[in-house]
């Protein structure tokens, strides 16, 4: 079915709010999913993978900084989804980059890391260049990178299948680099990789703005079903709370 971006955002917000995401985080999370989908980077497919787990994050410890110096930091996300922890990590990299010229933040134990693209893109708008790299998968390992130049509106994104074996010590890690001095670009050395340019990302956006978003009816239903958690049962008394006669 076809929905608008605003409908998707509103439904996702309710969904994350009902899943006990904090005020501020549920807007961020909704925007991260929407951003990927709007720009043709399969936000809804990734969100479908995350859906079974989004209610579990509330029981996990909050992210914490386990190492920090003036140009770097390491954050343990305690197996949270990037949807509700990655924005703060990018903020920290951004702040350190402004202070030191360039900074690296590594996040451990973080899932759905592709959602970082919205947060990275926001840095471009703020005059910061940013890049990220991560590996994913257990059977076959894929690798991913995204980057945006300072002042730009659209990032590049690459993904590819590697010959690497899965590593039991893999920490679901993600590395973020931010710089206020250097324009960062990234692409995979991997010959089996697929590169999506900023221009293609922009073109994908234009298509979505014109035509809206295609969504599987079952995913749409599931998002709305979870979102019901923020709605209050309708009663006669509740109707009076709207001021009607």
């Amino acid at each position: 079915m076809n929905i608008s971006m605003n409908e998707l955002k509103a439904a996702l917000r309710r969904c994350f709010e009902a899943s006990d995401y904090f005020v501020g985080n549920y807007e961020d999370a909704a925007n991260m999913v929407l951003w990927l989908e709007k720009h043709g980077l399969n936000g809804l497919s990734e969100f479908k993978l995350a859906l079974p787990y989004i209610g579990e994050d509330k029981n996990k410890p909050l992210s914490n900084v386990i190492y920090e110096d003036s140009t770097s930091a390491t954050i343990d996300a305690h197996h949270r989804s990037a949807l509700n922890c990655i924005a703060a990590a990018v903020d920290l990299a951004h702040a350190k980059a402004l202070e030191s010229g360039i900074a690296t933040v590594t996040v451990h134990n973080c899932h759905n890391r592709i959602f970082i693209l919205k947060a990275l893109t926001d840095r471009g708008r703020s005059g910061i260049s940013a890049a990220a790299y991560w590996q994913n998968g257990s059977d076959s390992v894929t690798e991913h990178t995204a980057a945006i130049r300072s002042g730009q509106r659209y990032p590049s994104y690459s993904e590819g299948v590697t010959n690497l074996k899965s590593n039991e010590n893999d920490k679901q890690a993600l590395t973020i680099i931010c710089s206020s001095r250097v324009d960062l670009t990234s692409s995979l050395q991997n010959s089996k990789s697929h590169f999506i340019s900023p221009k293609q990302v922009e073109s994908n956006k234009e298509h979505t703005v014109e035509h809206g978003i295609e969504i599987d009816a079952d995913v749409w239903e599931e998002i709305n079903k979870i979102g019901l958690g923020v709605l209050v049962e309708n009663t006669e008394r509740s109707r009076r709370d709207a001021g009607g006669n």
Partner: protein
Amino acid sequence: MTTNAAIQSSLWGENSLPLRPASQVMKLERLGAYHQSRLSFMRTLVRRIFRERWKIEPALFNLDHEGYGTVVYEVQAPHGLFSFVLFSDYLSPDERNDRVIATKWDLTMALVEGKVDQEYIEKLRENVPKQEAGRVDARVFVLSRANRSARNFDYVVNQLAAGEQPDVAKIVEVGYLYRTTAVYGSGKLGMADWEKVREKHKDFARPFAGEMFVCLMLRNFSLLQVEHIARHKSPDTFNPMKPEIKRYFGIGNSTGLGMAPYLVNHPLLINQWIEMRELALARVRVLGSINQQVRETISQLIDRSAQHTLETLTEDEWQTNNNKAVIDDMASLKSRIECGFDRWDELLEYSEQHCSLQGQEMLVSCMLEIYPELVDELEDFHSAEEFLDLDPLMPAEQLKDIIENSYDWALAIDFDAEGARETYWYRSEEKMEPRLGSVADIEGKKKQMALGVGYAVRKCYNQLIEYIAQNPEDTTARFMVAHPKLRGIVRRIQGMNRCVYGDIQANLLDREVLPMHLLRAKLAFFGVSKFDPRSRLWVRNTMFQGAPLLEEIGQTFNDDWFMPLAPKQ
């Protein structure tokens, strides 16, 4: 023609104009005392249509003698062609309901990009009359519905059929033939997102321009339909309505709580609207020359405003008293004007000392009316990029200073006082309608919407103080890693600090909060008049009363329909 840079230098820095302070302007009671002005969205839309001489003509007029059927207007505007599609269906009196939760209406409408063919009209016919229960595609960018005025519609038809004119006294009581109960845009029900409208449809690329246009077209259709029905009812005796009486018919509107969260959830946009209104006032105060003709004009506008208010009828005691105060205020201002004045500040200061808030804001609207050359160009600056970005490098200490300076009003509220947190806002499962509950309902409280900005600021401030005591040198980014739950409010505090006016200064959780002020503030920006509160939670009002008629497009246009008066009969 002004520019963003010129506006910014008027708002900020050494060369800025003397704006009224946020502590005065952003009080909820004052926002709730706003009136229409020449910057209101209805005024700017009509100016655009008439100055650009839009061509608006029926492409399909398929109504039976009772006025039921389908009508399509084609709208040729400078940047594109649009279709206004309207379905008129029979509705029994017992099905007529103004609440959002209604499921059937007399009229349903859609504003669509491009021409529509029969196949597309059929597709719309299957969905538009269902409103929330239907789906449309991204060619549609506004959907609306309306119900007949039980008091006026049949009466006007009968009068015209009998060759008589409607009694103006009756229109003073109810100034419309139809009342809209919802006007949807911005991607609802599968429609085009605002981003598409803004980028692709320049003719409607100002906030709520499409929505206002649909209401204007509804008004036009309502006048056409009553004449159509009357003509068929009695062809021999029928007489068309006089243009001056037609102009006095607007469109009714019922607005409930749904509008209130919008103001809290779009703070940058609301700030932008307020900045433009206040900038217009500052321009008038500093640059508006005053001569005898100007003195006479302001005097006439004050008279007109008093008469308009006199012709505003409401059963609501609170509003009646407000209106009486405005009429007294206008008399008082008139006396002051007759004593002479050389600076607008003299009148403003007088109003602040002697008039009600509604009277003070009426004076502001009248002042803006006199100087189109200083005011009108600001209408192109009502949009805002709604990014509440976090500034991660900001020292936590600076964040604390911002709260103490910009949110002193929130820190001054005792949230532990009885009733200070007794109201909460929630969404009902019935069409997700926003509602207002009291703490007595536990379930609703758990699911309340995050609209208590003042209280959130207070909680943030308390935690920030503790954090700074331990980490005095830290940045906001570091504070956010330690307190991720505060991300939303910190981003808002920093974002709104980049604005002149910032957040609405009120505790929306207070037992005594009057949502009516929020509704009225937004409606005044739209340009409505004749506020008629039906409870503390919803209000009836009139749109486009006094506006020129569509058949007058192309004729001389003087943009003078501020505070319209009943025509002499």
